[in-house]
């Protein structure tokens, strides 16, 4: 009985919230468009170094947001690997020697790698870029792991941690180099914009893939843990 009342109450609250939200969106959509942002964007596109507006916003106009977002991804990766206490994030018992899986992967993995490379390059003038390419690259890793291919680099050692922060560090260095030249933080030198964005996107792809893959394979695997404060250890 109490559960039914509770469900009813939650349903009513959801409906009421949706109605208020819809009314607000209706009121906002009815207003004539404000702001000159789209126009401002197209005026400055030629100075952004890339042709696609989304990439231009992400890696040039609002690059500070992207830099911090990559930081958020690195934090997620760190929090993930901090939970696993085994020497390798890969469980040897999960390896298989199924010939069919191997054969299938021989077809899939090169194809997915090429796709990731294409997505990265496409970001310059059409939808694509580091996030999409990184996701495909991570999916390749997930497939390899599920198929039981040994991946020795997935050890919470220096190599994995370097991979996690590689993209972030390169981005950060690019951000601070302009300061030495007396410019603002994150201002790219005008003639270097395109190559810089390309380098940043490429290393970001690797690091994003690394973070996603590390999150997929890391899990608390053993029982050793920290005692609570004040507990006898």
């Amino acid at each position, binding site marked *: 009985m109490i559960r039914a009342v509770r469900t009813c109450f939650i349903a009513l609250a959801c409906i009421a919230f949706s109605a*208020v*939200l819809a009314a*607000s*969106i209706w*009121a*906002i959509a009815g*207003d004539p*468009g*404000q*702001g*000159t*942002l789209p126009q401002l*964007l197209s005026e*400055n596109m030629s100075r952004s170094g890339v042709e696609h507006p989304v990439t231009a916003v992400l890696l*040039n*106009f*609002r*690059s*500070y*947001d992207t*830099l*911090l*977002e990559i*930081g*958020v991804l*690195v*934090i*997620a990766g*760190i*929090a993930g*690997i*901090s*939970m696993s*206490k085994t020497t390798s994030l890969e469980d040897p018992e999960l390896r298989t020697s199924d010939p069919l899986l191997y054969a299938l992967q021989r077809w899939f993995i090169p194809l997915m790698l090429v796709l990731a490379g294409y997505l990265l390059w496409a970001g310059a003038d059409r939808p694509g870029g580091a996030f999409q390419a990184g996701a495909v690259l991570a999916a390749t890793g997930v497939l390899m792991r599920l198929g039981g291919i040994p991946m020795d680099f997935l050890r919470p050692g*220096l190599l994995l*941690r*370097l991979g*996690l*922060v590689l993209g*972030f*560090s390169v981005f*950060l260095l690019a*951000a*601070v180099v302009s*300061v030495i030249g*007396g*410019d*603002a*933080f*994150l*201002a*790219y030198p005008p003639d270097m914009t395109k190559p810089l964005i390309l380098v940043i996107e490429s290393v970001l792809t690797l690091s994003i893939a690394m973070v996603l893959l590390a999150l997929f394979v890391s899990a*608390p695997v053993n029982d050793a*843990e*920290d*005692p*609570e*404060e*004040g507990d*006898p250890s």
Partner: protein
Amino acid sequence: MTLWLMAGLLFTPLAWAVLTLLTDFVWGRRVTWVGILVQVLVSLGLWLTVAQHGGFYYDLGGWGAPLGIELRVDGLAVTFVLLTAAVASACGLHAGVYIDQHKPWHRYFWPLFWFLWSGLNAVWLGGDLFNLYVGLELISLSAVGLVALGGNANALRASIRYLLAALLGSLAYLLGVALIYGQFGTLSIAGVVAWLDNHSAPAGPGLALALMITGLALKTALFPLHRWLPPAHGIAKSPVSALLSALVVKASFYIAARLWLAFGESLGSLAAAQMVGLLGGAAVVWGSWLACKQAQLKQVVAYSSVAQIGYLFLLFPLTYSVSESVSLQAQQGITLQVISHALAKAAMFLAAGNLILSVGSSRIDALAGVSRFLPFSLFSFGLAGVSLMSLPPSGGFAAKWLLLQASLGSGQWWWALVLLAGGLLSAAYLFRIYRASFAENPETDQFFHPSKSLEIIPMVLAVMALGLGFVSEQVLSVMALPFAEEGAP
């Protein structure tokens, strides 16, 4: 010069996060000492610059708002940057000794600590609604990672709860940001304010402000959305609890306050302002009451945070449609409350960590006899308590005094009752701890002595909280500095 200071402020924490991720715990500690030194100097330099020349906007990447992101570097922001530098370096130095260096997973403390610091700076300086969201995410995720560090089952449970609450709050905020962008076509707070000054307030975005404030109130643990806070702050390592209580919850409140002061007059309503104030008052009473009933030392301190956060939300009714001078008084009072609570609560959590380390139990009744063996830490705990109880001459007293004047000046006398009740109740739960620690227990005389540096750090913070009352005039004068609206750095 300013360019270098700004770049140093933004770059150092992020760079040190990368450096410390590549080292082990002991090397991470050494690297962190250097980083703390750099960051404190840069924060101090920026504060002095703003104190001399006034605030300015800093365009990132050379793209001004609304196309790019601008940072608003004003007196309030640099004051909080400096506060963060003080509290975070104290917690970092304490953690370097307090945290067990032999557990391999503790090396991840340092990168998360530095990411947390960079997120805090991003929020204090943020002038762009979406950028503030990214800053909040940096803070929340690194805070959750710090609580979960070690993978203890209870810590994981508390941190998952914390993560879900924080994510829900962020999403509500983000939905509000989307609505604001749909209405005004810009993400810059200054841009929206400029639009509102020239036009009559539209009907749509009232919900946006409500959503953003609700989401941020959840992240600040305003009553009745506070249930995630005590488990997370209670179970984390003491330096982490100190960071969370002193700084992390203040970041989301800071954004809510900035939004309210910018948009509240045109998009808010009297009912909403009184409602938020009422919840804040309820938090003061209910949080203090629950703090009186806790059996664990750190839970008392955590519930005390719930109560102290309640005071902050009195800002909403005390600045809505009141005279300019009353509003200014309320803002100054709340600022002092944020600073004094940050210093006092960090001192209190660090001292509580020392006490727990010493008696080997986190229960209050286990503290019997500790007054003879660890008087220094207990004294720091007590001094911090003086500021929480808002006795003169502490910073807490100056804050409550200003709030009292503001509530009487605006004719809203009912908030004065909240201030009085909160002071009395905080005395009740703090004296419970002193009583337990002065009791004599003939059976236990086995105490562990923490190192001197662990005991000195909370003392320094507690003295700063106490001394804030003497220098509140100077602290507040930096915030009242003129702001160069069009000034380039």
